[in-house]
């Protein structure tokens, strides 16, 4: 019932759009696209208890089809703001990532510098925020837009002191008689006004984004539901909730990336500008910490 909600309007407007395009004139125009100078693309999300991993590649012009590969022969240096850590990362030829055996720590500011011959060096700075403490997780029956759903209530504690940015994910832990437990990422949705919606097509999304602006330093109960998750009756299903406490930059990068994926190919959607905190380049250098709770 819900899927039908916008179908006719959308279908008819698409028909009009297609009809208009067919009836209209098309031509290639002379367009002086600015000369494209490839930039370094640096993507690194770092968390405590995990070693440093940095993905470095090159951007390419949308007007050519060249495929960009991960870059080798790049100098990737990470140093801490307090001077306790300074290391040049090594390239792993199997994973194509730059790595280290060292692990970042919460609350310390780190700076990354990436240099490669022929390209401007890029920089970024970030740190891992304080983790959320998960207090409780319960399930209950819900009703949303004419459908029954599985609802969850997650209570967690915001550490306070600085702006908190959270990403929430739900995994099912399903045990079948033919296979041991598997973890499936489940699409979730929420009517909570503090949740920043990515899409309201009723299908939910792989992450919920929530800021602590209305519960800074307090315990908060988030209610969310699974719009399209109907496990088989004969399986033994459990759930894991992951709460990512993120730096603002990492949060915005994840949010815009998901918005991009969600709206890709929709001619009626606003184009998405993916967030970047890499000076002179593209990508993200952001800290996060994960808290988990099983049910």
């Amino acid at each position, binding site marked *: 019932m819900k899927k039908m*909600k916008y179908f006719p309007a959308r279908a008819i407007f698409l028909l009009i759009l297609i009809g208009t395009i067919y009836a209209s004139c*098309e031509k290639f*125009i002379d367009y002086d696209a600015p000369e*494209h100078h490839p930039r370094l693309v640096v993507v690194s*999300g770092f968390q405590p208890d995990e070693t440093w991993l940095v993905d470095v590649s090159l951007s*390419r012009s949308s*007007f050519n089809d060249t495929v960009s590969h991960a870059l080798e022969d790049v100098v990737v240096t990470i140093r801490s703001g307090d001077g306790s850590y300074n290391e040049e990362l090594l390239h792993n030829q199997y994973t194509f990532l730059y790595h280290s055996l060292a692990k970042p720590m919460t609350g310390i500011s780190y700076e990354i510098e990436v240099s490669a011959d022929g390209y401007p060096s890029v920089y970024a700075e970030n740190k891992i925020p304080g983790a959320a403490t998960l207090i409780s997780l319960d399930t209950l029956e819900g009703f949303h837009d004419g459908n029954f759903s599985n609802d969850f209530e997650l209570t967690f504690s915001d550490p306070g002191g600085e702006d908190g940015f959270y990403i929430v994910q739900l995994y099912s832990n399903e045990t079948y008689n033919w296979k041991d437990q598997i973890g499936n990422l489940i699409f979730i949705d929420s009517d909570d006004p503090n949740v920043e919606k990515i899409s309201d097509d009723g299908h939910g999304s792989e992450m919920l984004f929530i800021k602590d602006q209305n519960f800074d330093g307090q315990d908060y109960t988030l209610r969310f539901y699974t719009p399209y998750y109907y496990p088989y009756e004969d399986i033994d299903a459990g759930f894991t909730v992951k709460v990512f406490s993120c730096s603002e930059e990492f949060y915005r990068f994840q949010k815009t990336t998901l918005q991009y994926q969600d709206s890709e190919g929709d001619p009626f959607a606003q184009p*998405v*500008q993916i967030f970047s905190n890499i000076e002179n380049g593209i990508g993200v250098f952001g800290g*996060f910490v994960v808290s988990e709770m099983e049910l």
Partner: protein
Amino acid sequence: MIKHLVSLIAAVVLLFVWQGGAAQNPDAKKAAPQKFTLNGYIEDAGNGEKLIGATVFVPSTLEGTATNVYGFYSLTLPVDEYEITFSYVGYTAQVIKLILDKNLSVNVNLVASNLLGEVEIEAAAYTKIQNRTQMSMNEISMKQIKSLPVFLGEQDVLKTIQLLPGVQSGSEGSSGFYVRGGGPDQNLILLDGVPVYNASHLFGFFSIFNPDAINNVKLYKGGFPARHGGRLSSVLDIRMKDGNMKEFHGEGSIGLIASKLSLEGPIIKDKTSFIVSVRRTYIDLLIKPFIPKDEYVPYYFFYDVNTKINHKFSDDSRLYLSLYTGLDKMGAGYKNEYSYDGVKYKDDEDFFLDWGNLIWALRWNYIFNPKLFSNTTLTYSRYKYETVIEQYSERTEAGLTEKSGIYWNFTSGIKDWTAKIDFDYMPGPNHYIRFGVGDINHTFTPGVNQFNIDYSTNYLDTTFGSKNQYANEMFMYVEDDYKVNDWLKVNAGFHATAFLVNDKKYFSFQPRISARMLISEKNSFKLSYSRMVQYLHLLTNPTIGLPTDLWVPTTDRIKPEYASQVALGYAHSLPLDLDLSIETYYKEMRGLIEYSDGTSFFGSDKDWQNKVETGRGWSYGAEFMLEKKTGKFTGWIGYTLSWTDRQFKEISQGNVFPYKYDRRHDVGIVGVYQFSDQFDVGAVWVYGTGNGFTLGLEQFNMQNPIYPDNYWGSGSYEYIDSRNNVRMPPYHRLDLSFNFTKKKRWGESKWSLSIYNAYNRQNPFFLYIDNKNDGTKGLRQVSLFPIIPTATYSFKF
């Protein structure tokens, strides 16, 4: 609060009524210099239509006034003998000699004329551009609108408005307009004083205003008088005809896509009149016979109906009832009946979208005394959009019929009830005071689903979706057009509002001031400041006017929109009756809304607040206009140089970005030459810097670090530096029209040949990156309308 406001207004009215009476009191005459008031209406002698903005001028004292939107004037002068000139552009002026030794009521009927007499030029100078306090205002005559080239045979008020400096058109063919950097929702479009929430037919390609039913069009871009409020960027005041009081007449036209017919005449001569105008497209009727019965039949049509009745109880009391209703409907239907194995089957399916406005206004004009005019209004405005799917089946076997069906309906819209009272108080030639109070009750329907299933084994009848939202908007205003001395005239006032929604209250005080400084007989400088507040937001797509565009209220989270605008202008009257105006302006807006990145403009219902960002905007620039309103050649040259930017925290990483319609240069050249009574030619040339649009010029690949298995979120992404980072090629177009008019025994017939886009310019509608034949990539442009010639036959009787 409204109670207090009404009490205050009532007290002021009583005071003014008493003052008006005092002028007639012999005792009062002894105390003050003897002054008496001349008042009345100025009308077209042929049909009794009110002439809005007609001039009443006293050459001996150089004093005068102009009629208000109801054709009423009032001029208070010392006791004496006067020659008073009554004039209006396009009409022969009338000079009346009178001795003003008591209050006089004189209704004047002016005769339409194509030639200007000397006396008229002198009188019209009173309302010449350099003499008016009002700046940033344009008035377009219906005659001009009807002579200009048209798109697909349909004359269009809004498309003519787009040709004015400071007003920008939206995308190709669209009737949407953008004033001084504002959005399409920031235009208050009034039809007989009632707000119109969706002014377009056919996805914005035509406006809902049928020119045959319209009397007067005024556009305010800045220097807003205090009587107007509720939108940030413009007020488009469209007044319908009242209906011919003298004789029965009609006019109509047969065009390429639509035909229209208007009838008007007296019900009781010189007392009660009516006008009815109907317009409908007929492409659906034309294609219907060619589609087999058992196939889906697609259809589209729109219609609109304007009606008005006005009744004159006395010279002091008139009642008007006007109504507009219009509908666009598109969809596809299917009907089939067949028999199989002795069983009869009947299928009936239909799915459609329809949208339209219903507007009515009941107005009562009452003259309390010669100096105090009042207008009491009760109005209703409703815009509704709905999507419907219906599917019904019947199965008849052995005389027994089983019926089943599904019905689904999605409705959204807005509904307003407004009550207001306005007063015009004219104590003397140096003051024109307007004041009033009103209340608008808004009902917003963001989206309601009604679902009905009726099968033999299942029955469901449910309604779900967003609840209606209610809001109350109260306002009051006071303004005075005050002639301080011979060179300085000021219009000062304020508009105060209160908006109540969900237990939240917003108040605003909006000062308005305009000043005219006459530096010589033909030159003046003008200055204005206005602060505007808007409590309603429109969730609209930035390209075309879709019926799904949704009006939503200010809420706890989404605050009102505010704008402050200053404008400085120079006005000069040139020989050959040319008016030159140069205006510069600076406008600052906050509380603006924009769709967030990635949001689709469909399905904006319950969570609309999550789909928008709020931010700020600026617009500044200069407008030049050289206009000729009279004579055989009429038209204007308009040029706008402007900059418009936006800034939103969550868009373009918080950086300032250009507005989609940030158009550096915008030119409109409009001309109509009347060779004779039988033949005239019109031409329009427009040029505009290309619109901004957003394009990912760079791409990158990445593995999302949040997933250890590097599966989710990994892939190729486009990188966009800024919203509206690319400019489309410039837009330009020439339209021509040739009108051949012939007098007939029964009236007048006219053939109009219009050529839209005469030199077949392929203007950009949208652009996208695509593969070329040689394997490289390029920017492909989609253009909508090539050269389109159309012929229209119209008639008058």
